[in-house]
Each structure stands twice: as structure tokens, then as C-alpha cells.
């Protein structure tokens, strides 16, 4: 009995020492996560309860900014616009990315050159692309108007980025052009990972091209598609640079994505509390997007 009681503390001490070793190993990662992710998030939540300029004005306002977000049209209009933007851009990426990946997966002369060419939009910085298309679409001297006029499609210059109807589709088109190479590359790598034996077996079983696509290609690409769609959606949901450089969120609220709105509220108006509250809500939305995607696309 006495031996058993002596043995217990020894075992538990050993276990504790063993566990302590584990904690020591994970501590650098935990410290980094706390410093770079957890602390800023908690600080963001803290700020959202204050009307503050972060320096000398700290007025507690409770849930005022959260309530404003749900009662004023400005916030949800901006969020809905951002959703529409994200859906259109991601859909565009997947349609173009899928078509190009399928073509580039076939063997033909010059395939490597085309792979490089189609990757180019991804390699240019977003600001460069934004400025480039701003010049192309300029209403006074832009080459787009010039081409359309010479083809007889339009009779006078159009302000692509200055009209409430045209600014949003114009920005979406540029964002699709900028972002499709990532999706194309991911799908291409996924396609290359599907064994040709599977297609051969499907052919023997009498599957036509469409059935091969549905029953071999799509299931084979599912893990890649899940990751890509989550990454791409969240990336474009919080898009800032391209849209800001092209339109600054305007004209009016035509391209006023939530990221631009939050940035302007924080760094232009110096209303950091309101911006933090909206930022927290957007974080929750991004988290829900990823949850929904995982549920819909989960690999059975």
C-alpha cells in the first residue's frame, strides 16, 4: 500500500514533466500566435466598444457601432456589394481557370510558353494592373474607347469608371483578369494528379466525356477545389488595392467594398471604433464563408 502511494506521485511527476516538455515545444508557436493573431483580434474587439482616435479620445459607446451596422443601410449595402463582387470574381476565375487548365493539360507544341503567358497577370503587382486599366478605360484618351469607336460600337466616349452602372462590372472584369491564373494553376496541378488509369477504366465502362468529367475529374479535383475556392473567396472578399486604385470605392457607392469602407472610416475619418466593429463583423462573415464551403464541399 505504502509502495503504491509512493509510486503515484512519482508517476504523476513524470507525466507532468513529460507534458511540460510538450508545452515547451509548442510555446514559441503559441507566443507568436498570441502576439500576431489573438492579441490584435482582442484589441480590435476592445476598440469596437469605444469612440476613439487611438490617442487622446476614448469614449465608451458599448454596442453602438454594432447596432449601427445592422440598422443603417450603409453597412449591409456595402457587405452585399462585396458578396456580389466576390461571387462574380470567383466564378469568373473558376470558369476561365477551368477552361485554360483543361487546355493546358493537353499535350501540344509550345505548351510551356502558353503556361507562362497565362500566368502573367498573377505576376504583376495589383497597383500596376489597376493603373494600367485605369489608363485603358480613361474617358478622354483611353485606348478602349478608341477601339470601340473605330469599330463603330460606340459613338462617343464612355466613362467606364465614372458611371454607377459601368464602374462595378469594369472593376469585376479587371479583378477576374488579375486573379484567374492562381485558380488555373491549382486546377492544372489537380488535373495532373488524376491518374490516367481512372479515365481509361471509365472509358472501358462506357462513360462518355461528360460522365468522365463528372465522375472522375470533379471528385479528383475536390480537395484542390475546396482549398482554392476558400482561399480565392476570402482573398477577394477582402480585396482593397485594385479597387481603391481604380475607383477609390466610387463613383458614389458603386464600388464601395467593405474593405475600402472600413479603411476610410479608420484612417480618413479617424473613427477607429466604428471601423473596428465593422472589421469584427467582416471577420465573422469570412469565418462563416469558410465554414459553409467546408460543409458543402466536404470530402465524403
Amino acid at each position, binding site marked *: 500500500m505504502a509502495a503504491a502511494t509512493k509510486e503515484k506521485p512519482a508517476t504523476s511527476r513524470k507525466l507532468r514533466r513529460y507534458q511540460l516538455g510538450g508545452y515547451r515545444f509548442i510555446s514559441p508557436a503559441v507566443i507568436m500566435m498570441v502576439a500576431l493573431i489573438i492579441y490584435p483580434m482582442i484589441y480590435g474587439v476592445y476598440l469596437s466598444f469605444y*469612440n476613439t*482616435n487611438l490617442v487622446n479620445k476614448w469614449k465608451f459607446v458599448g454596442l453602438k457601432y454594432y447596432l449601427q451596422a445592422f440598422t443603417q443601410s450603409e453597412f449591409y449595402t456595402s457587405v452585399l456589394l462585396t458578396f456580389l463582387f466576390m461571387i462574380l470574381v470567383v466564378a469568373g476565375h473558376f470558369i476561365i481557370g477551368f477552361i485554360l487548365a483543361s487546355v493546358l493539360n493537353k499535350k501540344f507544341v509550345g505548351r510551356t510558353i502558353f503556361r507562362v503567358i497565362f500566368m502573367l497577370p498573377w505576376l504583376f503587382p495589383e497597383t500596376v494592373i489597376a493603373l494600367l486599366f*485605369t489608363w485603358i478605360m480613361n474617358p478622354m484618351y483611353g485606348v478602349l474607347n478608341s477601339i470601340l469607336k473605330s469599330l463603330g460600337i460606340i459613338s462617343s466616349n464612355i466613362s467606364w469608371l465614372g458611371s*454607377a452602372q459601368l464602374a462595378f462590372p469594369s472593376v469585376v472584369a479587371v479583378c477576374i483578369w488579375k486573379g484567374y491564373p492562381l485558380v488555373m494553376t491549382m486546377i492544372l496541378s489537380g488535373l495532373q494528379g488524376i491518374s490516367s488509369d481512372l479515365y481509361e477504366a471509365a472509358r472501358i465502362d462506357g462513360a462518355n466525356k461528360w460522365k468522365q468529367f463528372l465522375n472522375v475529374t470533379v471528385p479528383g479535383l475536390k480537395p484542390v477545389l475546396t482549398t482554392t475556392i476558400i482561399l480565392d473567396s476570402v482573398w477577394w472578399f477582402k480585396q482593397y488595392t485594385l479597387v481603391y486604385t481604380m475607383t*477609390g470605392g466610387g463613383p458614389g457607392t458603386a464600388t464601395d467594398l467593405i474593405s475600402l469602407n472600413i479603411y476610410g472610416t479608420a484612417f*480618413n475619418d*479617424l473613427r477607429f471604433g466604428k471601423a473596428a466593429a465593422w472589421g469584427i463583423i467582416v471577420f465573422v462573415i469570412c469565418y462563416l464563408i469558410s465554414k459553409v464551403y467546408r460543409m458543402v464541399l466536404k470530402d465524403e
Partner: protein
Amino acid sequence: MLKKSLAVALASVMAVSVLPMGVMAADNGDKVNVTIMCAYASEDPHGQYVYQYADDFMKENPNINIEVQAISSNDIYTKLAAMVTSPDDLPTMFFTSVDQAPTLYDLGLMEDLSGYLDEETLSMFAEGITEACTLDGSLAFYPIDVQPSAMLYRTDRFKEAGLEVPTTWDEFLECAKALTKDSDGDGEVDQWGFSMVGSNNSSGQSRFMSYLWSTGCNMISYDEDEEAWVPDLGDNFNDSFAFWTDMNNEYKVVPTGITEVDYATAANYFAMGYTSMMLSGSNAIGVAYASNPDLKGNIGSFPIPGGHPGTMLNAEGYALCSYASDEEKAAAVDFLKFFSTHDKDLKFWQSSGKIPSTIEGQKAEYITGDDYKGYLDTIKAGCIPPMNFAGISGLKSILGDAYSAVFSGEKTNDAAVEDFKAALDELLEDYN
């Protein structure tokens, strides 16, 4: 053995590479470092003179090291607002204009310069200049130049069309209509009366504010009894608002794609002859002459039309950062005095088109012509005193959102004004 030798060689290289840093540190140890976050330096053609003046000053003061950080005016504001939460990296002084000063002052970034400037220095500024840089009784920044807004116009085109200088906005619109035409007869308008800055940024918003002031709309005013800022839109705000947007939407006297026309584009249109009038500070004269020297003798200016003052004096200059050390502040002030006084040719001011802040500077030959007349008349007639409202940037933003929404066809004038009023109430609630 090879690995050991490589490791020793690498360690030696690293050790040697650190040495110059030590030497530099020792060099800088005796010097006072002054960093300037400067918007002038990022602009052409006058930015070069900031560097030149800094070099000249360092030659005369070898114990002071001036580092100029060129950055655009709008970015300075944003950057300082972000940097103030970790003040170690703040510059010794920074560029500011009168419309950014209240916010930066509210953040506690601006040292009161009156304690650093003697009577002799203060007396060299022209009348009303130091008042234009004073907030709450504190001299918030050192004035380098002033540029009240006025209307630039093409004197040759006015003469050709038989037009008189307008004094009301209705007359202005008639002039703009007369100057909007298809000059090459190809069936498309290629010359517009008014080079409006219609972009929703600080440049566009400031001009719109000037226009509104000139119609008697103050937007906001300070209520001494309530000790709070309150809306002060005047009686005819809706009409005034609609008049401005109608210049694009109805009368088409401004260039196509107006929401994309920022200051640089508008100044370029004016310089290249696409437009005939432009609401601007005198710096646009510098841009016009630099881009198109043939315009010399063909540009005039007149005060903003309307029955009320339409502009502040719009002093610009450098603020002393309150977080800098006493030694750095003293050195920075020495540089500021040097900047204002040492260049007898006023190359910085003349090339930029800006009006000097000093009495001597305002006697310069280059501001005696027709091109500067409207600006000098505006100063003489008296400008609006500085508005010490910390949320001025937010106020400009909501104004910009309002006109931009109408220009793009997203909202009617009435809807935009209603939304503006709601946004103004919310802004004032946060800033009171």
C-alpha cells in the same frame, strides 16, 4: 575542414560588414538628426528645391543632418495618424495644410511654435498669415506659403468670346457654356468651360467646400452655448448643391468622366487647352506654365464668384512634431527660418506658383501679373478663418460621397443631400 573554413570566412565577412554601421553611428552621434515628412518634396517642379535648401543648410550647419522623406500630402495625414500610436518613429517635423491641421492638432502631434520663434521672425510674415496657422491660440505650424483658392481663366479665350469676368455663379455658368464647344468641327465637344475637379478625394472635396462657402453655406459652425459643432447648411444648400452637380449632369460644361478628374488631370486639361477656367490654388499656375510655356500672358485669375468669401487663406508649411526632442526641435526651427529667408530668388515659390508667406516674398515680381491678381484680391478682401474641427477630413469625405453619387447617376440631388445630412449628424455625434 572546408566547412570550418567557410564558417570562419562567413563570420569574418559578417563582422566586417557590421563595422561601417558602427562608424556611421559614431558619425551621427555628434549630429542632430532632423527628419522631415514632406509633401513638397514629392511634387514637381519645386520638390527639387527642398532638397537643395536642405543641402545648403547642412553646409552651413555641419552639426545638423536633414533627412527629407518625400510623401504625398494625403498619405502624410494617414501615415501620421497611424504612426502616432507608436510615436518612436515619428518625424521631427511634417508638412501640413490648414485643412489637415485640426485633425493632427487634435491628435496632439503639433508643438506650439510660438515658444520657438522670436518677435523678429514672427514679424516677417505677411498680415494674417500667423493667424491662419493658429489653432486654439497655439501656432500649430510654420507657414511656408499661402494659396487661397481663386478661379484661373484663359484671358485670350475670354477676349475672343467677348466675355467679362463673372462675379456670380450664374454669370460663371454662362461663361462656361460659351467656352464649351466643338473646336475642330468633328461633331464632338473637345473644349470645356470649366476644369472641375470631380474626383472624390481631398482635392475635389476642398474645391466643393470652397464653392459652398462662396454661396453662404458654412456646413458646420461652433455653437458656444452648446459647446458643440452643429450643422450650418444655410437656406439654399439644396439649390447650391444641385447647381454644382448640374454643371456636369445637365449643362455638360465640364470634361467627360468627371469623377475621374483629379487635380493633376484637371490642371493638365487646363494647361493643354481642353478647358478654360479652373478653381484652384495658385500652384496650378506653376503646373500650367511648366506644361505649356505658351500660356504665359494668357492666364488671368479672379476671386471665386458668389456673395461670400469662398476660401480660407490656405496656409501650408511645416509643423513641429511634439514628440521630437528639444535639440531636434531647435535644429528644425533653425532650418525653417533658413528655408524662408535664404533664397532671394524664391525659386521654390516661383516654380511652384505658390505665394510666399513673408512680407518680402509677397513683393516678388512674379506675383504682380494678371495671373496672380485674383489671388491677391482674394487675400485683400479677407478669407475665412481656419476651422478648428478635428473631423474636417470626415466632413470632406461625406461631401465627396454626396456629389460623387450624383455625378455617377446613382442618386438624385435631393437623395444625396438627405444622405449627406444624416451622415453629417452622425459625424458630429462622434466628434462632439
